[in-house]
């Protein structure tokens, strides 16, 4: 074997036999540098998720390190998708980490010509006040035919198919208690 080792310094095949890596695709394929290399996702937390685009419901794995998403890949465990993602699903990483995402609450005054940034809490307070004011002003205990209706037609909502079930649930629950009936989503679109 010692001979083979010496020979192997000049003749790769001899080295492959000596190192019991006949194909040369095993340990011999590693360099000092590559032995130390680790995948980007090495040591990352993995969160199981679901693709946010269409309703097929493909499994996604979200890799996170230091509070940042490193990558989003298909989940090979999923009986629906078996690890595959389509062009949109494969772009999920850019969807959630892209520079297009707005980070501030923006406000446009009536008749205003520009957006301005306002604090989240202030915006929440303003919206709650508007909902109350409009609701009180447009409340119909009865409709024009005298039916007991207990509602407002002054406020409407749109959207839900991109949201979670729990979110739709709270929305419908809150709106119903407020007498808001004009609640709709993408199911009719």
């Amino acid at each position, binding site marked *: 074997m010692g001979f083979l080792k010496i020979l192997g310094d000049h003749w790769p095949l001899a080295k492959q036999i000596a190192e019991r890596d006949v194909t040369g695709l095993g340990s011999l394929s590693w360099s000092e540098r590559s032995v130390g290399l680790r995948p980007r996702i090495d040591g990352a937390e993995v*969160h*199981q*998720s679901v693709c*946010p*685009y*269409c*309703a*097929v*419901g493909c499994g996604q794995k979200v890799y996170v390190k230091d509070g*940042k*998403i490193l990558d989003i890949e298909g989940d090979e*465990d999923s*009986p*629906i998708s078996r690890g*595959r993602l*389509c*062009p*949109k699903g494969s772009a999920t990483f*850019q*969807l959630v980490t892209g520079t*297009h*995402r*707005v*980070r501030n*609450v923006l*406000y*446009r005054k009536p*008749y205003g010509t520009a957006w301005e940034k306002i604090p989240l809490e202030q915006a929440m307070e303003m*919206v709650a006040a508007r*909902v*109350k004011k*409009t609701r009180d002003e447009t409340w119909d*205990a009865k*409709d024009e035919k005298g039916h007991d*209706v*207990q509602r407002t037609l*002054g406020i*409407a909502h*749109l*959207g*839900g*198919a*991109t*949201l*979670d*079930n*729990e979110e*739709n*649930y*709270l*929305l*419908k*629950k*809150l709106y119903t*208690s407020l007498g*808001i*009936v004009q*609640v709709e989503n993408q199911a*009719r*679109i």
Partner: protein
Amino acid sequence: MAECHPVGFQWVMEAKARGATIIHVDPRFTRTSAMADIHAPIRAGSDIVFLGGIVRYILENDKAFKEYIIPYTNAANIINKEFKDTEELAGFFSGWDPVKGEYDGASWGYEGVEETIPAGGHQEAVPGGSTPHVPGKAVTSARRDETLQHPRCVYQIMRRHFARYTPAMVADVCGVPEELFLRIAEALCKNSGRDRTGAFCYAVGWTHHTVAVQYIRTAAIIQLLLGNMGRPGGGIMALRGHASIQGSTDIPTLFNLLPGYIPMRHPKYNGVDDYLKSNTASAGIWSAFPAYFISLMKAWFGDAATKENGWRFNWLPAITGDHSHMATVADMVDGKVKGYLVMGENPVVGSMNGTLQRKGMAKLDWMVVRDFALTETADFWRTAPEVVSGEVPSGQIGTEVFFFPAAAHTEKEGTFTNTQRLLQWHHKAVEPPGAARSELEFTWKLGKRLKALYAASRDSKDDALRALTWEYPESSPGEPDAAAVLREINGQGLLDGRYINAYTELKDDGTTACGCWIYAGCTAGGVNQTARRKPAREQSYVAPEWGWAWPNNRRMLYNRASADPAGNPWSERKRYVWWDAALGKWTGVDVPDFIADRAPTYRPVPGATGLDAISGTDPFIMQTDGKGWLFAPSGIVDGPLPAHYEPQESVVENALYPQQCNPMRMEWHRRDNPYHLAYRDPRYPFLITTYRLTEHHTAGGMSRWLSWLGELMPEMFCEISPELAAERGLEHTGWATVSTARGEVQCRVVVTQRMRPLRIRGKMVHQIGMPYHWSWIGRVRGDAANDLIGFVADPNVHIQESKVLTGNIVPGRRATARRATLGGSPGNAIELPEPGPLRNLPGMVPFKRQPLQNDPEKE
């Protein structure tokens, strides 16, 4: 399917690899056609003729799976003497009220059952006023003729009804040659019986029509006749387009429903008792309706809802008509709506007549938009084309606009319900950036603020809000725990605090609370069943331990039908759920969708009610009579059988009936929503159909801002045939302007043989294909196709007709877009025929169908 649901399409390819025949029926040749064995180009809007032709083929060639349809469907049921078919009434069914412009469906019922049979869960679909309501008592006494020979049995009624849907008619109306049509019909029929099944997949190409529900009904008839429902490899698959569009229908952000398809309050109900009685079926799963409704009221109002106060039914707001999206937008334009909250939707691009949407928004006092980026909907007051052009200056728009950045699915936890009714939990991976928050947190905090604002109120209108159960634990500071909300949806026993394991445990005495009865069991045993992730390779192909499907984790509905009447699998090959006589219960690879210990030999005694009325051979337990409905005795407002009506805007006269369009369709007669002539409008000679692309998502809010997707599909275009290009002088990659009476858009031209002119009623018809993803913001931009489309809708579900309309195309770019909403009128002055072709048979309908909104601009 390969275009819009590519990963789902892998299973079609798996089936093909195992020898399945793949048939694609679509106006365009797409990636799906490329992989299919047969592609049939069809005229958009003619599918009921195509599908009705298959129904006729099955009936006239005796191809129905008789062993299946006789026990499992209402084929043998005898219909009332008073029923008259479209064959007898020039395209109308009996019961048409020409004054109200709607049907009274009383004559459509079963003989022997004096009351109308309710359609499970869809009482609200019955037009107000005309409903004799209707527990459908004595459904067990319905008369049947199992020889299928009685002239008034459903089977024979269908034979007469579909007699005119011949292969020659299919060729003439749909443009599908007879031999191609027959190949498809034969392939479907060959694939039926004990050993074989076939599946239908569809998407919005079938639903965006004024006869949308009847498209799906026709497919359901085929699938029932061939014995393809409730069996492995069968079914009708709705391929839906948003991650939780199924969830937002089950737990509806929809005007007409409460969670679990429970109808909203309506003045037609005279108090809670009447409401409960009207919606409680005499038999089947809907016979426990009071338990579902009362448990919901307990979940929402807690101790404040008691039997004595009618479970606070009177706290629910009442609907009085159509409050759907288009009706609301029309009201908005008329100044009746003051505040609007839009979350994760972009109606300026995704909804019809985009300029009308913006005109409505400009009339609001305030608007809230929640999204990732400033969509066209958020920014309309600043950058909309009519604002930039100065037609509607920003300074004249008084709407106060709040934009809240939204958290992404990776920044919050919760469940999506996919298109197969599967709930899958997604975990939170990171915190949302900046001020971005989840809708869960926004809604919870808005509710808390409103409760505080109304805390001191003694006004009865605020009682419901003040009593609303709104205490949720926080998963992190300020953020409500989604798992706790899911547990409320699942439900709890109020005496013992135990989580509900199945909807059958719900009570009508106020001792259970449940936010959505069909989701009961999703946290059975206090365990989040939706978060289960047992790898597919470690379990059966049904994968029951991946997520959780409603109801009761059943992966296939009505799977009792996968066994023969005696309870044995129809064949070894199609084994799924069967009766285990030794154990005295149903078993199989899925959760049986049946009463667990109901023997196949069980027969209800006459007059039985509730679950006792379900025979051992009645697989369709959501239906009052347990049968698959070939003929719908109730629940569908525009007819018990599908009939072909031409779209609102067509190129031809209806070849089937003197009535041109669906008599029940919903029109909005307004100057800002003009319609073309019913057919052969000389200004608009071509058909337009819209669609989505693999590389973009619906109205673009989740795709047009992404460079990766923008690079793949950078620009708005239309697809036309070489023949149309030659006729109109259009060049490949050149510009074209497509116009309708609503407006006009410019786009690049793709000349391709994938679009084929079709010979319809002796005349060549050209179709223009247009994707609808683009608009004026985002990394990739273009005109919005939906600006071309008017408001007109199906009467059952209020969905718009966007998959077929007429239009014109000319070479070159537009100057400034002409928009009817802003008073722009068609530039091409062609003399129109006087009087124009009629949409309605004279004398059969009122002059204008409701809903008619006021048009304040009317001179």
